[in-house]
C-alpha cells in the first residue's frame, strides 16, 4: 500500500498555513523571526520531498519493514454486537512502539536526513512521542534531545528510561506547570539556538506552519489505509469515522482520507476530564475560545488575560490546552463535530474493550471508543441496520497500566 502524502483535500491550508483563510480561519505562523527561515525551509523541503517518488518509496518501505504497517482494520464483532452497529478498529496499537506516533517521527526524521541535519529535538508529555522520537533517531543515527516537563519525568519514569536506553538525552523542564506545554516552550528555545543543524520533530499536528500540514501529510496514511481496507474488506465506506483529539495527529491522520467523502460523518472526542462543566478538562474545541498558542491561531484554554489555563485529563496524551488548527477549522466549518468524554467514560470504555475484545487500548484511544459508544444509537438511527463506525485505535494500553491499577484497584490487596 502506498502513502498518499502528496494528495490534497478541500480543507487544506493556504501557503501561509491558514486553514479557512486568515480572516475567519486558524493556523498561521506566529513565531519569532529567528525561526522563520527554518520554518520556511522546512516547508519548502517538505513540498519537494513529498513530490519525489524516491522519498515516498523509501518512506513506504520503512513503514512496512520497520513499523509494521499497514496496520490491520479489524471488525470488533463482540463490541459490534453490544452496540448494535458494526465497529471497525484501525489497529495502530500494533505498530512498532505501540501507537500511531511512529509514523510521524519516521516521516519527519527521514525528512531531517534529506535536509542534512544531524540532530533532532522533541517535546513529550507522557513520553510516547519522546520514545517514538528516540526510536527514529536511533534508526536514522541522529542525535536526539527530548524535553519533558519535570512533573511528567517524575510520573513517567519508565518512558524516561526507554528514551535513555534508546540513546536520547532527556531534559526535565521545571518551568511553568512542568508539563507538556512547557516542554514545547523549552524545545522551541533550544531550536532558536540550534536551528542550523537541528530539526524539531513536533509531536502532533499543531504548532506553526508548516507543522500542522507536515504532520498531517505524514500521518494521513492511517485514513488512506483504513479507507482502502474498508472498501476492500467490507465493500464500502464507514458511515462515521471517530478518533480521540489531543493535539490532533491521530485524528487528522484518520480524518484526512475521508474529508471529501461528504457522506462520511467525522467525530472527534476531546478529553473531558472531570466533566466539561467543572472546568477541569482538556476540551479545547468545546471551550470555543480562539487564541494563539505555540505558533498557531487555534482554540486555546485561556483566562481573560490570555494566560494559558492548565488542562486536566486522566490521559497524559490528551492533556494539552491547545489543538491543531485544522481541527479548529473543521469544527468551525461544520465538517467535523467535536465533543468531550470524561475520565470516567474513557475508563469504562478502557475496561469494556479489554473484556469484550481482548484489546487493552491506550487511555487516549479509549476516549474514541467511548465516543463511538455514545454516538452508536444516533448513527444507527441515521444510517440504519448495518451502520458502520470506524474508530482509530491509536495506541495500546501497556503504558497506562499504572493508571489502571490505581483507577480500578487492580493490585493485589495487602
Amino acid at each position, binding site marked *: 500500500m502506498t502513502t498518499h502524502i502528496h494528495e490534497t483535500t478541500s480543507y487544506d491550508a493556504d501557503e501561509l498555513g491558514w486553514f479557512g483563510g486568515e480572516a475567519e480561519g486558524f493556523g498561521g505562523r*506566529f*513565531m*519569532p523571526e529567528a525561526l522563520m527561515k527554518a520554518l520556511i525551509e522546512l516547508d519548502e523541503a517538505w513540498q519537494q520531498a513529498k513530490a519525489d517518488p524516491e522519498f515516498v518509496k523509501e518512506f513506504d518501505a520503512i513503514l512496512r519493514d520497520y513499523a509494521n504497517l499497514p496496520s490491520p482494520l479489524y471488525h470488533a464483532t463482540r463490541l459490534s454486537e453490544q452496540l448494535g452497529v458494526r465497529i471497525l478498529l484501525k489497529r495502530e496499537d500494533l505498530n512498532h512502539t505501540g501507537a500511531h506516533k511512529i509514523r510521524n517521527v519516521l516521516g519527519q526524521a527521514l525528512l531531517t536526513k534529506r535536509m542534512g541535519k544531524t540532530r533532532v529535538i522533541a517535546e513529550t508529555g507522557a513520553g510516547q512521542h519522546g520514545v517514538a522520537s528516540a526510536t527514529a533517531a536511533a534508526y536514522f543515527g541522529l542525535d536526539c534531545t527530548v524535553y519533558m516537563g519535570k512533573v511528567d519525568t517524575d510520573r513517567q519514569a519508565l518512558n524516561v528510561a526507554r528514551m535513555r536506553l534508546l540513546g536520547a538525552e532527556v531534559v526535565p523542564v521545571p518551568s511553568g506547570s512542568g508539563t507538556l506545554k512547557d516542554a514545547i516552550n523549552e524545545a522551541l*528555545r533550544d531550536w*532558536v539556538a540550534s536551528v542550523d543543524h537541528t530539526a524539531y520533530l513536533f509531536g502532533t499536528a499543531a504548532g506553526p506552519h508548516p507543522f500542522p500540514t507536515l504532520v498531517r501529510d505524514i500521518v494521513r496514511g492511517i485514513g488512506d489505509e483504513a479507507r482502502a481496507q474498508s472498501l476492500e474488506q467490507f465493500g464500502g465506506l464507514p458511515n462515521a469515522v471517530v478518533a480521540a483529539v489531543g493535539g490532533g495527529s491521530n485524528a487528522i491522520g484518520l480524518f484526512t482520507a475521508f474529508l471529501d467523502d461528504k457522506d462520511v460523518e467525522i467525530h472527534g472526542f476531546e478529553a473531558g476530564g472531570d466533566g466539561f462543566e467543572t472546568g477541569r478538562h482538556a476540551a479545547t474545541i468545546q471551550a470555543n475560545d480562539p487564541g494563539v498558542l505555540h505558533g498557531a491561531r487555534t482554540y486555546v484554554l485561556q483566562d481573560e488575560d490570555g*494566560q494559558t489555563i492548565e488542562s486536566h485529563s486522566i490521559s497524559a496524551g490528551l492533556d494539552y490546552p491547545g489543538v491543531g488548527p485544522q481541527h479548529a477549522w473543521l469544527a468551525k466549518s461544520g465538517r467535523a463535530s467535536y465533543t468531550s468524554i470524561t475520565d470516567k467514560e474513557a475508563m469504562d470504555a478502557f475496561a469494556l474493550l479489554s473484556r469484550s475484545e481482548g484489546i487493552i487500548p491506550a487511555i487516549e484511544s479509549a476516549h474514541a471508543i467511548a465516543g463511538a459508544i455514545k454516538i452508536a444509537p444516533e448513527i444507527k438511527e441515521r444510517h440504519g441496520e448495518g451502520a458502520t463506525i470506524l474508530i482509530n485505535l491509536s495506541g495500546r494500553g501497556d503504558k497506562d497500566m499504572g493508571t489502571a491499577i490505581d483507577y480500578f484497584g487492580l493490585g493485589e490487596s495487602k
Partner: protein
Amino acid sequence: MSTSVAFEKAKAEDRAALVGYLPAGFPSVEGSIEALTTMVEAGCDIIEIGLPYSDPVMDGPTIQDAVQQALDGGVRVDDVFRVVEAVAATGVPTLVMTSWNPIERRGVDRFAQQLQDAGGAGLITPDITPDFAPEWIEAADARDLDKVFLVAPSSTDERIAMTTAQCRGFVYATAVMGVTGARAKTSELAAPLVARTRQTTDLPVGVGLGVSNGAQAAEMAAYADGVIVGSAFVRTLLDNRSDEQAALKALAHLTEDLAAGVRAR
C-alpha cells in the same frame, strides 16, 4: 512619546541609547514601578516593560523566573498599563514588550488604545512577525504608536527589508541565535546583522540579547544606535530579593555602568 525622540537625543550627544527592561509585577507591581523609575533616574533612555505571559518562547531562565514570580503574584494586564503610566510619567519613552496572545485576547485595537491612554510609546513583539500582524500594524498606524519588530542573524535580507519596512521607532536586532539571558561574551553575529539592517532602513537599530555590563555595552554602542538590556537587570533584582534598598542601589549601579558604556563608543 515615540522612542525616536530618545534616539535623536542620543545621536545628538554622539552616543548610543540605553534601553532597559523589567517585567511588570516583578517583584510586585509597586516594586516594578520603583525599580523602573530607579533605572530611568540612573540613565536609561528608553524603558521596556514586560507583560508577563504563561508561555514565553523567547525568554531564557532568568526572565522566566521573574515572569513566573510576577504571575504567581497575580499580575494582570491592567496592572501593566498602570506600570506604563507611572514610568511614562517620568518623561522617558516607555514600550511594552509582550508575547502575542494577551493582545489578541484583549482585542488588538482595544489594547492599542489602552496602551496609548497610559502614555505608552508602542510595542515590542518578539514572537510575531509583520506578515502575521496586520491588525497590530493597522492599530499602531492609526495612533502613531511605535511598532518594534525583531530581526535575527538567521533572517534573510528579504525578510529584514520586509520587517524594517513595518517598524516605527526603531528596529530590534537580536545579537545571538538564542533566547534572552546575560552572556559572558558579546556575539560576533550582531555587527553584521546591524550592517545588513542598515542597508534597508534609516531607523535606529537597537541590539539586544546577552548584554550584561558597561564594557559589552560600549562594544555594541560602536555599531548600534541602542543597547538593550534585560536579563542583567532582572538578575540584579533576583540576587537582592531579600533586601529592597540594596536591590535598588545595585540596579542604579548597573544602570550607571551601562550608561557609561553607551557613552564610551
